[in-house]
């Protein structure tokens, strides 16, 4: 019975199937909303799904210079670890495997898909990919600092003493004291988090790593067919994971009592977060340069997060 339930958690909800399907839906929402903001009709909501399935049907070319194992394994590892993270992120008061990871673990697990992308791109042996991975890595360094500050602020606010970074403590604290976002000292952190999410997912204006017009899609340059489809799926899933993390960190206290309703509310908040922090910013900005991106995150965004951390530290 436990095995069946675990398998259900892993494979259907909130594991692989839910993450993939809802992630693709979020990506579709993103593309649609961006199109509407640019006064276009835009692709249908199912467009990312079409892209994914089309890529499955394409030929997979492994370049001569590439390391075959790393080249093919990278997207799969990225996919699996993304599907896994969702099992550790609480959907309000429900977590599939709560005892297995805390905030820091999630922080690190989220870097695995990025590393998979980097290793995959690097293994293709293309100089464009070399530049792409360099940018991807600098982006990673850029958003890591504010991300860490945000997580520390949240953890401090939720106030676990011994288990400082437990996700469970945070959701319990929110269940008792209302959503984190309602605390005014957390608002700068929430704004910073909203800016971290697009950088983590790699949407404009933070898509320097995959700049298709300058460096031919960067790390993805040599990918074709099913592995490329998996990478595209990974990006979509990252959207869900990041907006889900935001939701559980800052909107944790909302609870209707009915489990299905909870999930629907969770999904709605995810969609809203996607629209606010990815689509809107995408629609109104152009791609940054990598050094500007780094400076932006280490000054402005980190500043916001630091303000939050200091406020929380002062007991506000």
């Amino acid at each position: 019975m436990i095995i069946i339930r675990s398998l259900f958690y892993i494979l259907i909800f909130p594991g692989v199937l839910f993450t993939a399907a809802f992630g693709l839906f979020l990506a579709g929402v993103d593309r649609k909303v961006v199109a509407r903001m640019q006064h276009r009709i835009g692709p249908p909501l199912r467009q990312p799904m079409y892209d994914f399935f089309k890529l499955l049907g394409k030929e997979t070319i492994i370049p001569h210079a590439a390391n075959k194992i790393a080249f093919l394994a990278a997207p799969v590892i990225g996919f699996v670890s993304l599907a896994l993270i969702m099992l550790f992120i609480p959907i309000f008061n429900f977590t599939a495997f709560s005892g297995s990871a805390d905030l820091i673990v999630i922080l690190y697990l989220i870097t695995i898909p990025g590393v998979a992308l980097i290793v995959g791109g690097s293994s293709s042996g293309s100089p464009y990919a070399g530049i792409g991975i360099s940018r991807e890595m600098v982006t990673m360094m850029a958003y890591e600092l504010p991300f860490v500050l945000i997580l520390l602020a949240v953890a401090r606010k939720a106030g676990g003493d011994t288990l400082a970074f437990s996700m469970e403590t945070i959701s319990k604290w929110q269940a008792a004291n209302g959503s984190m976002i309602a605390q005014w000292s957390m608002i700068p952190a929430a704004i910073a988090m909203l800016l971290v999410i697009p950088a983590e997912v790699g949407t404009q204006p933070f898509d320097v790593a995959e700049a298709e017009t300058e460096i031919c899609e960067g790390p993805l340059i040599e990918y074709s067919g099913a592995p490329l489809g998996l990478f595209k799926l990974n990006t979509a899933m990252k959207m869900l994971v990041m907006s889900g993390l935001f939701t559980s960190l800052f909107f944790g206290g909302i609870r209707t009592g009915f489990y299905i309703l909870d999930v629907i509310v969770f999904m709605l908040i995810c969609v809203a977060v996607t629209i606010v922090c990815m689509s809107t910013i995408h629609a109104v900005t152009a791609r940054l340069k990598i050094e500007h991106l780094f400076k932006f995150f280490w000054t402005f965004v980190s500043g916001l997060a630091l303000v939050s951390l200091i406020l929380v530290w002062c007991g506000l």
Partner: protein
Amino acid sequence: MIQHFPVLAVMLLFLAAFCVEIFGSHNAGVRNTIVMIAATVAMVLIYALIKPVMIEGQIISYWMGNWEPVSGYAIGIGYEVDQLSLFFALLVVTTFWLSGVYSLGYMSKDHHLGHYYTLYLMLSGSVLGLVMTGDIFNMFVMIEIMTFASVALTAFRNDNEGALEAGFKYLVIGSMGSSFTLTGVALLYGQCHTLNMAQMSAILYQNLTPTSIMALALIVAGFGVKSYIVPFHTPAADAYMAAPTSVSMIFAGMVNKAGVYGMIRVLYTIFNAMDKSTVQMLIVIFGAVTMFIGVTMALTQHDFKRLLAFHSISQIGYVITAIGLGSALGLTGGLFHAMNHTLFKGLLFLTAGAVLYATGTTNLDKLGGLSKKMPKTCICFLIGAFSISGLPPFNGFVSKWLVYQAVYTKAVESGNFVYAIVTVVALVVSVMTLASFIKVTQAVFFGQCPVELKKTQEAPVSMLVPMYIMSALCVLAGLFYPLVNRFLLHPAAQSALNVTNYIDRMLGEGYAANMGVENIQVAPVQFSFWNPIVWLILFVVIFVAAGLVIIGSKEERGKMLQQGVKYDAKYATFFSGEEEMFSQVGGSDLFWGFKTDWKGYYRVLEGLHSGIVTDYAVYTVMATAIITVCMFVFMR
């Protein structure tokens, strides 16, 4: 019987060092046999101590020449192996055994191997003795042997550019460190009238006079030099780079750890100073600065081994930060990270050595695309890189995670914002570590293969086997960290925090209580949530599911084409249509976007790392002065 093992192991190594010089300087077979027998036997002797010490909780003591304490004063040289000592001894024997195996293949192209092995055995014996001795002057002697063996080994390939310079730097700074230690030991002897550490611990318990504070500061500075914390790190980079890789591995795995061990032994056992918040703060800040400067320097390096050297400095920063916290959690994390650092840094140095062996260079700008030529080395390197960058589920992640927890818990408990900043620094340093290893991955193993390296061969088996062992240990330590904690870390941390047993074992039951030493029982560390096994199971389940879908839908998928063997436009890399093109961005310049933003910072650092020994000596003296002043001003 068992109490003879530690001394036998140490003496065996020293004896073998002489035998190698006498019998084996012209005969490779004899030489290798002596070295491997000595190393293996020493390793077995130390491993045999795991059961009584770690599991049963015994402390093994041994008086040289049976000179037991007379009327309460320990006058003989005593060996005392408690859990902490054994923990480090295990690291030491593992490292030098693997390094010995590796040397067989790696050093085969060099001359005067008799000298090499002599020095190698001297170094191994001295570090082993250092971590197991119970006598502080004996410790100093071992430090001296270690330093001079290290200097000679650093300059061993003296036909290489920079080897002698590196040796000289090491010699100057290392001697300064030794002198500090010696001065401290002398002061302590004057204060306590004994050289036995257990007795000193009992005498100095909650009883610090200005003289002993001075001694503490000097000894901490001395061990700081040995563990290369900033600003004592200056000779490290050159030494690691110039030394043969098997020796670099020993430096990272043993010599560094000797410094860390010394720190722990002095701060926790002898002086019991870790409950003072200012000492904690001082050590933690030194640790944080070390990890940050180490990693930022590593990001700009052009040489594989030099980069690894700066990472060594950075990782030691983690260890120092963690042990500086003075909490059980911090000590556990610090010890675990010290152990993991031995494993993954050793592994990384071995892969660097394999690359050097196969290609003749470690310059990042000249390497590339080796993953197809040296696939096994590449996999080992990736495991090492992921471990040191702290990616789950490898071992580096667990120890770093413990360190963050320890620091942040400390921050929450003390309400001190500095610790929160240190947490942030530690987390950011981790991602920078990842960045610089991505750089190496790209510049050495992936990326483009230059024309000169087309005929590179995989490293020989004798070099691969140590790498495999190290990789396996990295993975296992990450996956089964609760077991590691239970059998290695917790006993070691407990023995460091609770000195009663250490004193009593040496000087007789009740001695500690007489001197007013409290018996502190340390509860096992409570971990937060990270269950790598569950993670791995989930990973495998999803992997299998994904694999089933992939296999099931094979018909629908586009053909999975094999790589072409000959040149074929279809399988060629896309260079915007060109036939072949080489990247103008050197492997070492990968993160120019980052470097641009940090121009000012790097200008300062470049100015500081001037390469002039005089400057470095000045830093050493200044840092020692700062430590001393801080200790004096804030400890009273």
